[in-house]
């Protein structure tokens, strides 16, 4: 009952004009960043991180939610119109949406993507409001050894989620943990791993790491690309003509797709969102595969079907609600955006966990409300009002765009401690992330390693102190055993079981 009241108060706070404007602002920023290939919602929040210092935390968080929901949806705009997913989560939407675009049904595909995103996002945020309080109760039952095993479980899932290269996922995660060990030891007031460099005693701040990983690395990647390539994309984009009235999906189309496709997609997305490191692309992929498996006519997949768009888009937007549950209750982010939002909380002096969810629920509740309102109201409204102009938004001059990103990123690095040393750290982290990306190492694993590293070390060392250095404590406490068993179960499902070969089926259908 208390939670229900808290959430209602959250809605009340959200609808204060001075707060609501930030959700709208976040939604517009998120739409832009999600739609432009190469830019992501994670990058948008990373760049806004420094300004959250001087902003009210509630406004910062509701703005992040607007960016999150919009960024997850708007990747479908370029995916459908020019077959280049604006965000990785729109990969499956591109397969179906662009085929429809070629048939002159682009607006219908965009409308369906928005409708499915609305349903997925709404279900995801409702589940977040329902599940989060229970997750808090569960979090309170977990003792120190259990917390260690929980984070170990999170790491295993983060690594196994990189199905194409588990070893590279592990390297990036461990590198993140190593970087986090630089500075003052978490349990004793002594510096470590400074390699004789005095400024490293203060450690590496979260902000330079986030900005470097997502903004500077992207800047370096983009600098490699030729301007002619973008001019060609812009030319293609400007050719597209989209009419506002075609956006609205008809009842007949919704019936043909089936409400269950949307609901199933949303549930898949939500539960994948809860898993650390999995994120929107995996959710869209699994939901699409499930829609194809359970469809009466699987042969139409890959040829431009609304059902495929509905499955993928409802799943990736439901991820938003799922990814926030472990982030808010256990400090374990479900995906890259949740990890950066965790950064917003930490930088503003808030530590996610049961205490935040109980004593400071008034700060979190507007965030829930913002996610819900973004999905249910702002998302379809934005499409209807701005839809025909979406194409023009993403054709912005790239030299202006990336020089602005470079400046905001570097100044952001400075703002973290008002020192040029952290600016240098931002650049170094950016170069590391760039090299990792060039070699196909997942940078989100690096970030999760950095965030969760100090926590796993703290719980590991505390557990050993409690039990006089005997590691058997991890195998005798029930909560720890549960998570260790979960590691075995997930290892089996994520590595031993063969998935559906979507690529093969689509190629077959297209030919």
């Amino acid at each position, binding site marked *: 009952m208390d939670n229900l009241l808290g959430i209602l108060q959250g809605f009340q706070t959200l609808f204060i004009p001075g707060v609501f404007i930030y959700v709208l602002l976040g939604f517009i920023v998120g739409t832009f960043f999600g739609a432009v290939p190469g830019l992501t919602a994670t990058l948008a929040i990373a760049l806004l991180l420094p300004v959250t210092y001087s902003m009210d935390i509630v406004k910062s968080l509701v703005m992040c939610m607007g960016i999150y929901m919009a960024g997850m949806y708007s990747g479908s705009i370029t995916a459908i119109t020019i077959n280049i997913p604006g965000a990785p989560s729109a990969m499956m939407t591109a397969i179906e949406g662009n085929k429809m675009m070629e048939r002159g049904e682009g607006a219908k595909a965009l409308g369906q993507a928005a409708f499915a995103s609305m349903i997925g996002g709404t279900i995801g945020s409702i589940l977040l409001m329902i599940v989060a309080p229970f997750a808090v109760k569960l979090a309170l039952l977990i003792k120190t050894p259990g917390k260690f095993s929980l984070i170990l479980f999170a790491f295993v899932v983060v690594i196994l989620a990189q199905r194409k290269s588990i070893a590279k996922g592990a390297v990036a995660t461990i590198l993140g943990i190593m970087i986090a060990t630089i500075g003052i030891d978490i349990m004793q007031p002594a510096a470590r791993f400074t*390699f004789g460099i005095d400024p490293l005693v203060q450690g590496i701040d979260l902000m330079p790491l986030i900005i470097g990983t997502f903004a500077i690395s992207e800047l370096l990647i*983009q600098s490699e690309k030729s301007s002619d390539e973008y001019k060609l994309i812009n030319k293609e984009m400007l050719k597209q003509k989209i009419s506002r009235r075609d956006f609205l999906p008809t009842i007949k189309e919704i019936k043909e797709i089936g409400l269950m496709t949307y609901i199933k997609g949303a549930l898949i997305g939500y539960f994948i969102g809860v898993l650390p490191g999995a994120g929107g692309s995996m959710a869209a992929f699994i939901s699409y595969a499930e829609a194809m498996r359970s469809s009466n006519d699987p042969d139409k997949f890959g040829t431009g079907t609304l059902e495929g768009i509905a499955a993928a888009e409802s799943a990736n937007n439901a991820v938003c609600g799922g990814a926030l549950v472990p982030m808010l209750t256990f400090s374990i982010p479900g995906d890259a955006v949740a990890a950066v939002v965790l950064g917003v909380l930490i930088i503003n002096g808030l530590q996610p966990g049961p205490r935040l969810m109980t004593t400071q629920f008034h700060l979190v509740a507007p965030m829930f409300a913002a996610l819900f309102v973004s999905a249910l109201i702002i998302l379809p409204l934005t499409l209807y009002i701005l839809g025909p102009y979406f194409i023009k938004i993403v054709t912005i001059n790239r030299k202006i765009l*990336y020089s602005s990103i470079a400046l905001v990123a570097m100044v952001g690095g400075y703002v973290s401690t008002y020192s040029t040393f952290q600016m240098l750290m931002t650049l170094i982290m950016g170069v590391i992330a760039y090299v990792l990306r060039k070699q196909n190492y997942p940078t989100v694993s690096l970030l999760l390693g950095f965030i969760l590293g100090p926590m796993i070390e703290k719980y590991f060392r505390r557990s050993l102190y409690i039990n006089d250095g005997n590691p058997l404590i991890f195998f005798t406490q029930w909560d720890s055993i549960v998570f260790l068993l979960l590691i075995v179960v997930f290892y089996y499902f994520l590595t031993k079981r063969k998935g559906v070969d979507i690529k093969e089926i689509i190629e077959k259908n297209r030919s």
Partner: protein
Amino acid sequence: MLNLKKKLNISHLFCVILFIWNTLYVIEAFRIAPPIQKGQVSATFFPLIISFLMYITIALVFFTSYNQKNVTATSFGQMNKPALVVLVTIFYITLFKIIGYMASSILYIFAIISIFEIKKKNILIKLFYAVIIAVIIYILYEKIFLIRLPKLGGNM
């Protein structure tokens, strides 16, 4: 020998760099403290465990890419522009506190725009963009979010 050279690529070089980093990390850990002191784990116990795991995963990546017929990792062939961006950014960081936010940022944006579009023409337009962007970001940080940025001579 020739066959071995063919199979080695940039991905392996990166593994070697990681290996060196990991070894330096281990040496630093032993320099700080032994992993176990007075029967309890010390500040270097956990880092040594992760560095041990790092050795295993580096070896896995190395041998996996060695056995792969088609290596998917991208090469560093197009690194000229990223290297220029890094160089320009180092200069920017150096000048940031000395000549202040505005002058250093205008120069930085001008340099980045020039890297993204190498055309000798339009220098004035590039400069115009640089001034506009620097001013907008200044207003955003200093006036709206009240974040102080360095002025000329390093004063805040």
